[in-house]
């Protein structure tokens, strides 16, 4: 079966159906794609990583935080290792920044020492307790009233969106079909065995279903009569700063954690920005991604405790992500209600880090419930490299333009992104279908002008490459059309394709 | 019977933006205060009796490097006919090449107002 990506017709059947195209679903799909199996991923949005996977801290945690013996602990450490091995080959930007858990007083120093011991139990290498002087030497802009910190050299940062795309593209190259704009409406169970998935686009027969539906994984479970867990969305707000202040911080800075969350961080991003956040607020609506005045004020206050000289004037955007919280640990394992249904649910922090490890474990779990695995001879574990124009030296840039003139047209001037890269982002196996999809793949529109200059141009390129009218181009979600024509407005129509 | 109406008028003739009053008695302007130049006086008098505005908008272009041609009224349009003019212009399409200054609509709606091209648009081979 050839791999594919898009709002395509649903096949009649598949060996395995993965519900959810976030980082977990795509990592699972990739893990399955090394076997002779027909694998279909169902994603309700027009793109992968539109839920929690695109709005998180982008941190590959070292693994000291999770309680020993839990899925979180085991999969965090294994996942961090896998990213170190796989990132380059899959085109996932990753930086080994290390991380610091900052202590402000003696009590916090004790907590931090406990974290170190927990980390050792979890198998995390290289953990050290640093003195105030050591911390200040490494992070000159940190608050001078720091007492010390836990240094975790294996902590790293990654682009969570490109991680998802990296897994997804590799899965597609190895035959997985990712069907977008496809909403799961039912699970057919006969004699306590999964037999099919019902969707907005029809019915697909299958005996193995992976529930990786993130914020909606509780609802998916209930479609099979499984109410063994509930997802409580927990919102975290972020502020992202301009790349020009990238020198402010060198490593991921955590405050000493409390019982609820890891706390409000100050961290670099893999693209050279700095962010602060997230806070943690329980909400009811799994689609409510509004930032709030109180939330933003709170994360500014929290971040200032670590970094008092935060340059608020260089903020470029604010956003909120929702954690799919199920309880103390991940919900990973077969459903008690239906054979063949296996959950990868409640994947909050360290979910991004754990994703490739969840993929490995899911293969075993599916095998345990009867999936036959025959390794695929044609499996290719890596993606072809994509040139990033702005990272290259002048000679290489000149050669790229000579080979493809569209490298000579700069569309996003804030980040120096060329038309050739945007076209490649649209035409690649897991290609962009929306303006934000282009932004998340190649950074056009992610800079300080936030698409003010390049937005109309990216919209025109999408329309051209996808063969659709400008009025059909969407920003991000299924119904997020950007423009209407004069004729539509006169006819009393709203903004819709 | 004498009918006396006092209109407060903000002049838009230049960036200073003088404000003044125009007093209309029995349908004609009898007095004006507060305006400090002839352009302002002329604008204020007309604004009360028969307000007019310069109108700028776009019309469609075929065969050109751009989809739209900006056009401007050569003389002001009566304020209450602006939307009628815009409706007329919405149905106008010109063929490239077009030269700046070309009259694309003459005597729009019989008002004696022409609309001209505000720029060149070259044709696309």
């Amino acid at each position, binding site marked *: 079966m050839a791999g594919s990506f898009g709002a395509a017709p649903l096949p009649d059947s598949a060996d395995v159906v993965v519900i959810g195209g976030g980082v977990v679903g795509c990592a699972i799909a990739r893990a399955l794609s090394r076997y002779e199996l027909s694998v279909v991923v169902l994603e309700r949005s027009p793109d992968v990583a539109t839920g929690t996977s695109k709005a998180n801290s982008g941190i590959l945690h070292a693994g000291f935080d999770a309680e020993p013996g839990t899925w979180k602990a085991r999969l965090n450490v294994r996942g961090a290792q896998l990213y170190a091995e796989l990132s380059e080959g899959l085109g996932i930007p990753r930086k080994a920044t290390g991380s610091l858990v900052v202590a402000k007083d003696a009590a916090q120093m004790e907590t931090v020492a406990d974290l170190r011991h927990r980390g050792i139990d979890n198998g995390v290498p290289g953990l050290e307790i640093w003195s105030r002087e050591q911390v200040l030497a490494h992070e000159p802009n940190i608050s001078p009233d720091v007492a010390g910190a836990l240094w975790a050299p294996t902590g790293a940062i990654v682009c969570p969106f490109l991680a998802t795309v990296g897994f997804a593209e590799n899965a597609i190259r190895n035959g997985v079909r990712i069907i977008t704009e496809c909403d799961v409406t039912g699970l057919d169970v006969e004699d306590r065995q999964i037999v099919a998935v019902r969707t907005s686009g029809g019915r697909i027969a299958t005996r193995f279903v992976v529930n990786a539906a993130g914020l909606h994984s509780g609802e998916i479970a209930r479609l099979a009569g499984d109410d063994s867990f509930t997802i409580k969305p927990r919102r975290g707000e972020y502020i992202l700063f301009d790349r020009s202040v990238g020198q402010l911080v060198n490593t991921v800075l955590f405050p000493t954690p409390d019982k609820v969350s890891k706390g409000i961080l100050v961290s670099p991003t893999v693209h050279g920005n700095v962010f602060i956040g997230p806070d943690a607020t329980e909400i009811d609506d799994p689609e409510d991604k509004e930032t709030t005045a109180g939330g933003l004020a709170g994360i500014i206050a929290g971040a200032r405790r670590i970094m008092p000289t935060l340059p608020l004037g260089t903020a470029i955007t604010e956003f909120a992500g929702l954690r799919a919280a199920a309880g103390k640990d991940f919900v990973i394992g077969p459903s008690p209600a239906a054979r063949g249904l296996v959950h990868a649910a409640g994947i909050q922090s360290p979910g991004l880090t754990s994703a490739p490890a969840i993929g490995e474990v899911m293969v075993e779990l599916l095998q345990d419930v009867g999936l036959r695995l025959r390794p695929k001879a044609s499996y290719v574990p890596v993606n072809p490299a994509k040139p990033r124009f702005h990272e290259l030296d002048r000679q290489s840039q000149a050669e790229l*333009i000579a080979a493809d003139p569209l490298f000579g047209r700069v569309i996003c001037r804030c980040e120096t992104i060329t038309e050739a890269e945007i076209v490649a982002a649209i035409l690649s196996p897991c290609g962009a279908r929306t303006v934000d999809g282009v932004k998340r793949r190649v950074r056009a529109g992610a800079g300080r002008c936030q698409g003010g200059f390049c937005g109309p141009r990216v919209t025109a390129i999408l329309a051209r490459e996808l063969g659709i009218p400008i009025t059909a181009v969407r920003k991000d979600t299924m119904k997020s*059309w950007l*423009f209407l024509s004069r004729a539509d407005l006169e006819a009393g129509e709203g903004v819709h394709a | 019977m004498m009918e006396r109406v006092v209109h407060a008028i*903000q002049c*838009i003739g230049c960036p200073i933006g003088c404000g003044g009053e125009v007093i209309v008695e029995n349908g004609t302007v009898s007095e004006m205060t507060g305006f400090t130049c002839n352009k302002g006086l002329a604008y204020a008098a007309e604004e009360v009796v028969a307000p007019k505005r310069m109108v700028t908008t776009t019309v469609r272009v075929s065969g050109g490097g751009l989809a739209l041609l900006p056009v401007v009224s050569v003389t002001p349009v009566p304020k209450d006919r602006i939307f009628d003019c*815009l409706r007329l212009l919405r149905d106008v399409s010109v063929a490239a090449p077009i030269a700046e200054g070309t009259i694309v609509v003459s005597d729009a709606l019989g008002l004696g107002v022409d609309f001209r091209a505000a720029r060149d648009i070259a044709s696309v081979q």
Partner: protein
Amino acid sequence: MREMSYDVVTIGGGPAGMAAALAAREAGAERVLIIERDRELGGILQQCIHNGFGLRRFEEELTGPGYAHRYIEMVRATDIDVWLDTTVLAAEPGGVITSVSPHAGMTVVRAKSVVYAMGCRERTRGAIRTPGSRPAGVFTAGAAQRMVNMEGYLPGKEVVIVGSGDIGLIMARRMTFEGAKVKAVFEIMPYSNGLTRNIVQCLEDFGIPLYLGHSVTAIHGKDRVTGITVSQVNDRLEVIEGTAFDVSCDCVLLSVGLIPENELGRAAGLALDPITSGARVDQFRQTSIPGFFAAGNVLHVHDLVDWVSEEAAIAGRSAARHARGELPALGSERSVTAGEGLRTVVPQRLSAFEPGKMSTRFYFRAAKPMGASLLQFWADGVLAFERKLRVVKPSEMIVADIPVRKIGDAQKLEFRVVPAPEKIEAEDEIEEEA
């Protein structure tokens, strides 16, 4: 990779770049080049289809494209080289410019003088940190203006405008003309930043309400915008509890400020004025990098394109003189300060005057609206020159010529705007720079 040499290169082919190139050529620079990233010259003027341009420069009221057309014709009549669809990646001290285009590939240009004329960008929703969701339908007013006026697509049909600067007011009228319903304009300050004529002909003419002292506190909508929440603010711009109300709309246009686009300069180590966000320049418009000049919106945000053309001509002439080695080297310059009542002054430094120079022109922005005022020049703490101003608005640039003899050898140069003791009937005329 091509390599080429020019005497003067302008980065940007909008009104500033064109005027600078023309002035450089006229002042005797032999090889002059304009590098423009768009497919045509004219810059931002091409999307400003409204009129009000050129009253000073051409003594006619022109549209933006009409003003651009005049300059494009002038450039065409010369042998100035124009590169379109070409982006400058870097412009390094010493005048080494690296540019790329699809048709010519990568070119390294060696220029004796460079004029920054890149204009500015719009302040974003993210920079003002408006909470809420991030649905489709939130645009900066200028980006929407381009789509409406040049591509022919509308950003929405029920519009709310944030910010009462001229771009927002112009778009209120434009969207109304295109058949949309503009529900309101919200301005956080207690006064509008736009020209009074625009309040009349863009808002009052169409019954569009202007809410002063109001801030948009949230944007709502999951796919498209569905509405906003607004609150009144106090004189410290803080939200007044209990005044919030919602307005339904499907489009939010932001007109909340312009920022000079100095990324190329920053990369080259340019000294910037933190208030204008543009380069610190002397009266020749030379920046802290020898041979690099700046003019137009990239130097400080202008309100009238006529001043842009004039300022760019200064920069172009200076660039030509520098290319011939005739401009005094950067050395002991005196600083110029924007004092009481003023926010910014350009130029921020004075280099040695040429012999015979009679006066020099300064451009100012006031800090707050005032009535009848006096623009004062203080040289070493002594009032040396005064000019009457009928009315002062932050949105309108103040331009004044100061006689060189009044500046003399003073080291501490400061400008102030103070309330006038009595009403002023007529302003002093602006003298031509001698």
